[in-house]
């Protein structure tokens, strides 16, 4: 990874976080599938991280609602993806 970190990029963005109601959830698992592990690298907002136990977790606050994670894991069913409630989530200033 080179240059600006993703967190710094997201800092420029505008969000209205629906506190306590994340729109994406990772289902409890012992070992993640290849697809779920790939999200740690490919999520453009860097929302997915690998824990010490080798599981994958998500903090969806910086999510740009692109949908990549839902599409990649559609066969494994490891994540639950919904739109945020109306008005919440990312609010693109320019888009």
């Amino acid at each position, binding site marked *: 990874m080179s240059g600006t970190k993703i967190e710094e990029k997201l800092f420029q*963005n505008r969000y209205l976080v629906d506190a306590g109601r994340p729109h994406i959830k990772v289902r409890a698992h012992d070992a993640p599938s290849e697809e779920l592990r790939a999200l740690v690298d490919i999520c*453009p907002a860097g929302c997915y991280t690998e824990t010490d136990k080798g599981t994958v977790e998500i903090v969806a606050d910086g999510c*740009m609602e692109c949908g990549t994670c839902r599409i990649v894991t559609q066969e494994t069913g490891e994540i639950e993806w919904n739109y945020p409630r*109306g008005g919440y989530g990312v609010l*693109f200033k320019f888009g």
Partner: protein
Amino acid sequence: MSLEVFDAIVIGAGPAGNAAAYTLAKSGLKVLQLERGEYAGSKNVQGAILYADALEKLMPDFREDAPLERHIVEQRMWMMDDNSHTGMHYRSDSFNEEKPNRYTIIRSQFDRWFNRRVREAGAVVLCETTVTELLKDTNGRVIGVKTDRHGDAILADVVILAEGVNGLVGQRAGLRQELQPAHVALAVKEMHFLPEEVIAARFNLKGDEGVVIEAMGTITKGMVGTAFLYTNRESISVGIGCMVQDLAENRVSSSALLEAFKAHPSIRSLLEGSEVREYAAHLIPEGGYKAVPQLYGEGWLVVGDAAHFVNAVHREGSNLAMTSGRIAAETVVWLKRRREACSAENLAEYRRRLEASFVMKDLKKYRGIPALLHRNKHFLDLYPRIASRAAQIWLRVDGVDKRSKEGEIVRDLRAARGWRGLVGDAFKVARAWR
């Protein structure tokens, strides 16, 4: 609102939804448009280029107050390798016309403006309202929607789904399948701000003239994808996209690809000193004709990105969205005037009209391209390198005679791909292009 029945409900306020809602409202139909964002455009991302023709067909006077950035006078197509680009540029003063053909736009501003026009035309627009499900009657006919804002059902004679690439409402209602990783690209984009005069000087522009760069090559690291750089009035949109399947298989971060693209010697100096004010990501449905889902059914139609209407070869999408939105709405208006129901049989007219338009004709023409690129990833890696090496040999003046240089270029081509490979590639491209 629970017992009010609309002529039509439009889900989404992007180019497709706005075009549909505007056309319906202009024709005097009772329209409800639902948008999950805080305002129309707040969830939408595009490069973005507006193709005037599709909008002109809806509102010929749009130039009077639409938020347009620059009209495009120059198109650069770049094949990039690690430290060079081989380009084809086309610039013409004839693009400085009274009614320019292409403009750069900023989507959140543009969609907001478009949606204001939709309201002025008489549609009821509710933002911050996420549609949670389609309502069906016992025969499976779509009769309305449920939202997260009003507990009650909202009923309509027809529902037009303009919900974008992440069309969960239609998917969950079983109208179409989830997108396939091989059919969808993930693009990331940044907005770089610079003073207007700096952009003018860097790109050799005067007034509202603009330049767009479309790039491909080793910048996508052997994956299928493209990058772009568009000049807005006081900002530059720069981004890169690759197929989701390729990104997942190679575990590559789009954000890192964008950083590398920005650092490329051909791009870096164009962005120097800019202030980044937004980082965005969005999917683009690039599966082409073969990925187009069922487009209509009992009481529903699907338009725009949700219907997979993107011509990836020509980087067109918003014009297909507006055109499909308009044609869907015109079909509904036509049925209403004839006092006919919005049944699947009658709504099949939408597909017939689309087939007669450039939307389906272009998608059909390029139906073989997505699979071609998927199976021939070297196109975007090998050929830019070959072109760059050939240019190096040809342009360096080093005492070697020109006939020897020509021989070296030909030998290089042959070594890189072989005659059989070259002829095969040419044949494959010609067949997919025709």
